[in-house]
């Protein structure tokens, strides 16, 4: 189902700290059921602006991490004036929301085993994917440090890797992916995270002929195909709009995942 054609003023119902991240819950009873991989454009109703550099001004894109009992959950990382303002909101505060938007993840071809691979705040869309489509998928999550690794609590049964070794495997989460693919190559990968991670996933999957669905990020002005601002190069020439042709894009459509196309690490 498509998104209502207007931003909606919604109410924050709860905010919880999850290590370095916040989980914000927003009452959104009238929205169409979001699909895993879709996102919303969010902005605070009050005082959206007046931060660093007299920003934010535009709404910001956030993966819907979960949708339960009429509430959307978002996983937020404070990386700039927009996310900072959203992280300040408390239960009762008002939020503008437009969505759900974008092309979702799709179910794997018959017989292929799903691997969910997330990095940093990019783990968010994997939670709803695990909730709705792929309950039994293997889950591999990578984080920069221990504080961030507490974000793994958003999903069930995750194997965790950290860059600094403070939790789980000491190294890149893509090392774990390579191990998994060695043990059973008949898989399909669902990934979201920093650009460097996604590029590594893309190249591993290309080499092993493993299908992969990558949830990309890009700075967005609109989120619904109007501004042509959120593009990534398409294999073979031209550009894809991440908001409309993605955010979930088949890895085969990309030559490589460019620097600006991923989540913060």
């Amino acid at each position, binding site marked *: *189902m*498509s*998104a*209502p*054609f*207007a*931003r909606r003023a919604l109410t924050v119902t709860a905010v919880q700290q999850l290590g370095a991240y916040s989980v914000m819950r927003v009452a959104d009873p009238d929205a169409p059921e979001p699909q895993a991989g879709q996102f919303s454009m969010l*902005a605070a109703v009050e005082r959206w*602006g007046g931060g660093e*550099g*007299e*920003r*934010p*001004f*535009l*709404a910001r894109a956030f993966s819907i991490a979960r949708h339960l009992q009429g509430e959307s959950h978002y996983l937020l990382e404070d990386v700039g004036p927009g996310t900072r303002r959203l992280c300040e909101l408390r239960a009762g505060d008002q939020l*503008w929301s*437009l969505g759900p*938007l974008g092309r979702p993840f799709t179910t794997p071809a018959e017989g292929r085993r799903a691997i969910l691979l997330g990095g940093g705040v990019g783990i968010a869309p994997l939670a709803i994917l695990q909730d709705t489509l792929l309950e039994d998928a293997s889950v591999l999550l990578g984080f920069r440090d221990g504080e961030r690794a507490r974000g793994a609590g958003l999903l069930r049964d995750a194997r965790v890797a950290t860059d600094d070794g403070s939790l789980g495997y000491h190294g890149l989460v893509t090392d774990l992916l390579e191990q998994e693919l060695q043990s059973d190559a008949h898989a399909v990968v669902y990934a979201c995270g920093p650009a460097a991670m996604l590029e590594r996933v893309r190249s591993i999957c290309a080499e092993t002929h493993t299908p992969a669905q990558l949830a990309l990020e*890009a*700075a*967005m*002005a*609109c*989120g*619904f*195909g*109007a*501004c*042509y*601002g*959120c*593009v*990534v*190069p398409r294999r073979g*020439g*031209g*550009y894809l*709009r991440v908001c*409309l042709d993605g955010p979930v894009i088949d890895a085969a459509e990309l030559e490589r995942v*460019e620097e*600006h196309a991923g989540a913060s690490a």
Partner: protein
Amino acid sequence: MTVEFCGLTLAHRIINGSGTFDAIAARAAFGEALAGEFPFAAYVSKTITLEPRVGNPPPRLWESAGGLINSIGLPNKGLERYLEEDLPRLSGLLAPSGGSATPIPVPLITNVMGSSAEEITRLLDACEQHAQIAAIELNVSCPNVKTGLDIGADPRALEEVLRAVRPRTSKPLIVKLTPNTADVAACAQAAQAAGADGVSLINTLRAMALAPRTRAGSATPWLGGVTGGLSGPSIRAVALAQVAAVAERVSIPVVGMGGVQSARHARELIDVGATLVAVGTESFRDPAAAAKIAAAL
């Protein structure tokens, strides 16, 4: 309570700024029903050029204080595929006209750009064959291949180009002026003298942003296109001054735009002489902004 503009009948005074609303993409995101309750009284296409363009490399966006800098680079399918593929999908748009009145058809205004009179002629000639195109908006913010300046920045050069191309179309011709000029009212007068049926302004202000420094290296431009155009609230007061200056000096109708976020802002442009008001950047923050403004006017 319809509005007449260059011989067209519109449901209300609010239209979109070229390049700030993609009706085809919006129907993919928000559903087909949108066509029957279209937020704009006329639909202006993104700028169409003779040849297809992929647009500028990313990043294409930079958020500034109360505004947006874009360096999209006019990606479009090129004239031929626009006429063949897009035009049919843009028919039948209807705009509510307030209260219980029947919705009014949304005329299509095709925005075109060429870097010479010859190119513009070819664009106009092709559009002339399509009854579905109700009017032409000519984007003259195109750099002149010889001088590097926008062809619309100099009144004499603008008048010359317009005199050459004006006879090629029987449709209303609206000239989208560039704001990056010393005397926008003189440019509007030149357009009127050359036979334009209307003028629209303001386009974006030339602007730039540097990439945040990560290490002590030399500074690099953020935008793939190096410079971009500033839009949104931060240019609203400039738009108001330019629209007022233009409306004072021409008798043809004026489409005012630049940073409009509310009915109050739209009313101000109308107060200084605009017949229609276009909403651009604010539609990014809320796709229904134009509809809300039209309803509140």
